[in-house]
């Protein structure tokens, strides 16, 4: 039992790692047409994430692999049930990768503008699709006894999930904007700085509304917090982190604000996880068909092997992730190797 719960926590950790790291580079993609005025600006934005976006995306791959290994039944049910949505996720992931890679390889204006748009649209696409998927996971899906479901793509686009997608867009844009303060200079930096308070306030209002909506519509969710009062720390500390990032932004301490917004993302995901635990995928047809941490996990032998791997591997992962960010710290300067 402790192994299954540990893996659930580790899984949320990986998802948070993905949301924090890829979150800011998706945010940069979404902000690009709003803050960049010319080709040079766009290249600076692209090179701000240039050396790290690949590594960030690997956290999604790791998330997929960890879900497959630790909770194979959830992996199989979720991915096949959301078939078309997953295919679209794959499409935008590929488009985004090639857009970053292809964009600056040719000088023609039409070429660059084409890939700029694909970069931006695919950044929105990934954020919205993942937000919609998470929304539907919270709402529950029509799982049958075999753990199969098939959700029509249009049914995925319900108001609650779309609201969650919108909040995700704002959250990643905010996170991306704060990240960019570390990478940009001059007018571009001023423009980003003036955008941050607006993004922060809008995000704060909508996120609060969404949390209220979640608690009001979902009794089980609320009940879980009542049963495990300490887990209320997640949403409370998330609010504290937003407040902290507001104060830090006002004082111009953007690096600390970036850490605050990263903490907030992890805490919000922690809040969703603690509202659902031990359920991972709720069945709307019959609660007996719920996929839980216990009934959907891999066997203990597998979890143990994987746990040892995680203990061996994760310290290195964190070490060189930190090392690479440290090495590429500082403002972007364009050179021959830039995108």
């Amino acid at each position, binding site marked *: 039992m402790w192994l299954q719960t540990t893996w659930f926590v580790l899984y949320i950790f990986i998802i948070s790692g993905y949301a924090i790291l890829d979150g800011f580079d998706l945010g940069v993609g979404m902000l690009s047409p709003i803050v960049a005025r010319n080709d040079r600006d766009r290249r600076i934005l692209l090179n701000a994430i*240039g*050396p*790290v976006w*690949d*590594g960030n*995306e*690997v956290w999604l*791959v*790791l998330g*997929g*692999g*960890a879900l*497959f*290994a*630790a909770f*194979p*039944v959830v*992996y*199989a*049910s979720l*991915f*096949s*049930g959301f*078939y*078309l949505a997953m*295919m679209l996720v*794959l*499409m935008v*992931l*590929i488009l985004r*990768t*090639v857009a*970053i*890679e*292809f964009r600056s*390889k*040719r000088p023609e204006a039409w070429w660059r503008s084409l890939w700029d748009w694909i970069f931006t649209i695919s950044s929105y696409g990934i954020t919205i699709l993942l937000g919609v998927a998470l929304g539907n996971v919270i709402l529950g899906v029509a799982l049958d006894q075999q*753990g*199969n479901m098939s959700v029509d793509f249009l049914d995925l686009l319900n108001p609650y999930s779309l609201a969650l997608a919108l909040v995700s867009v704002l959250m990643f844009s905010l996170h991306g904007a704060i990240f960019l303060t570390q990478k940009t200079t001059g007018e571009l930096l001023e423009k980003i700085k003036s955008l941050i308070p607006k993004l922060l306030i809008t995000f704060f209002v909508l996120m609060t509304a969404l949390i209220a909506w979640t608690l009001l519509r979902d009794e089980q969710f609320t009940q879980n917090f009542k049963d495990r009062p300490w887990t209320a720390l997640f949403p409370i500390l998330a609010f504290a982190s937003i407040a902290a990032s507001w104060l830090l932004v006002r004082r111009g301490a953007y690096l600390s604000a970036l850490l605050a917004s990263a903490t907030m993302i992890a805490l919000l995901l922690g809040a969703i996880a603690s509202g659902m635990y031990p359920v991972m995928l709720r069945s709307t047809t019959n609660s007996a068909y719920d996929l839980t941490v216990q009934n959907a996990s*891999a*066997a203990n*032998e*597998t979890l143990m*092997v*994987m746990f040892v*791997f995680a203990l061996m*591997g*994760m310290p*290195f*992962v964190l070490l*060189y992730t930190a*090392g*690479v960010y440290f*090495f590429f710290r*500082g403002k972007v*300067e364009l*050179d*021959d*190797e*830039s995108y």
Partner: protein
Amino acid sequence: MSVEDLHRIQFALTVTFHFIFPPLSLGLGLILIIFGVKSVRTKDPKWRQLSTFWVKIYGLIFSLGIATGIVQEFEFGTNWSRYSRFVGNIFGSLLAAEGIFAFMLEGGFLGLMLFGGTRLGNRMWLFATTMVVTGATFSAFWIVMANSWMQTPQGFEIRDVGRGPQAFMTSFYDVVFTPSFIPRILHVIAASWITGSSLVLSVGAYYLLKKRHVELAKTMIRVALPVFAVFAVMQVAVFGANQATQVARDQPAKLAAMEGLYQTESCAPMFLLGWTNPDEEKTTGVHIPCLLSLLTTNSFDAPVTGLEATPRNDWPNVSVVFQVYHVMINLGMLFVLIGLTACGFWIWKRKIWNQRWLLWVLVSSVVLTEIATITGWWTAEFSRQPWIVWQVLRTEDAYSPNVTFAQVVFSIAMFVVLYIVVFIVFLRLLDRRIKEGPPPPQDSEETESLPDSFGEIFRRRSRVSSGGK
């Protein structure tokens, strides 16, 4: 056409497209390490020049490998949900291990490797490159391990805990070291080194033919040709033969399909070219008598099991397997010929530089090695059918039952359009890079000023930059 066929077509399509890239990044990675070591040892600026040129191509190849690789990881869940539930305990853990040990290493150091030319000294750049290539090689290990378990599964038992039968791991060691793993990983790594070095050979030969960057082109060939020739020979003589022995021992029906052998016979022939008709159970063509017996059992008259030993509904598509296998085998032998001929002309008074026909052959080599790699994988995967896990789970019992015909048609159409566009753009950008050629040599004083140890990297306050453009 059934939904099962569509799922198979989609997987074959996406995995084939994906596997264009990994062997290039493994093999080119090896060449980049050689350049890096040379650069550290000799301090000759030409090695950095070559690294700078090839690392950009590496980046292009690598990013497509990542983008198309994510598709593969997701497809087990989206298209093969019953398979995923059945093997999650085993297969999933190998994929997750790949994520932790391999992808993270690659992803973490890729930025340093790609941007190292203007930011890192020789030793640290070599370090970053080595880390990425090590990650890529680990990745090959884990994925071939997972695939080998599907070929020769062991270390598990099947239990039903409420959601139908599932495989449970009984020994992780047995899961990792299935009988086919070592022969197959050696075969795949050697193939990748051949493929990667052929890309370098191909570009070097092209420059020589066009009389551009002649000295650098010669250096490319001097580095890549020995790798190509040595591994082409070893592939046929050691790794490939070794794998044939393994297949004969563990999966006789598979070997029989590859060679179109219907009756169990001693002194079984090996075909070079031919045609097989599974309905009449007859194979005709150019063959060498008794060679198959010799290769698989080390004895001329030992019997080789034919397809007759296997029920007909457990046969793969024998004609397809036979043909793709022979394309691979014949190309493998052609690489030995190309490698040895080129080495011969090199040793013989360096005549290789003027043999235009031979240079054209080298230009084409990368296409041939890619075809060999892909037909090799097709052989491995088609001949495993109708099993998705050899003699344990059938492919027809493995696809997602909740995904409709129309949905798969849509996703196949999406991938076809997307991959065609991406591939065309990739080839044009590659072509452009190659035509632009290597950059001018770096100023050695500038190289000297770049940080070249962990201490220097972390002490320095701001990065060194060569200025914007």
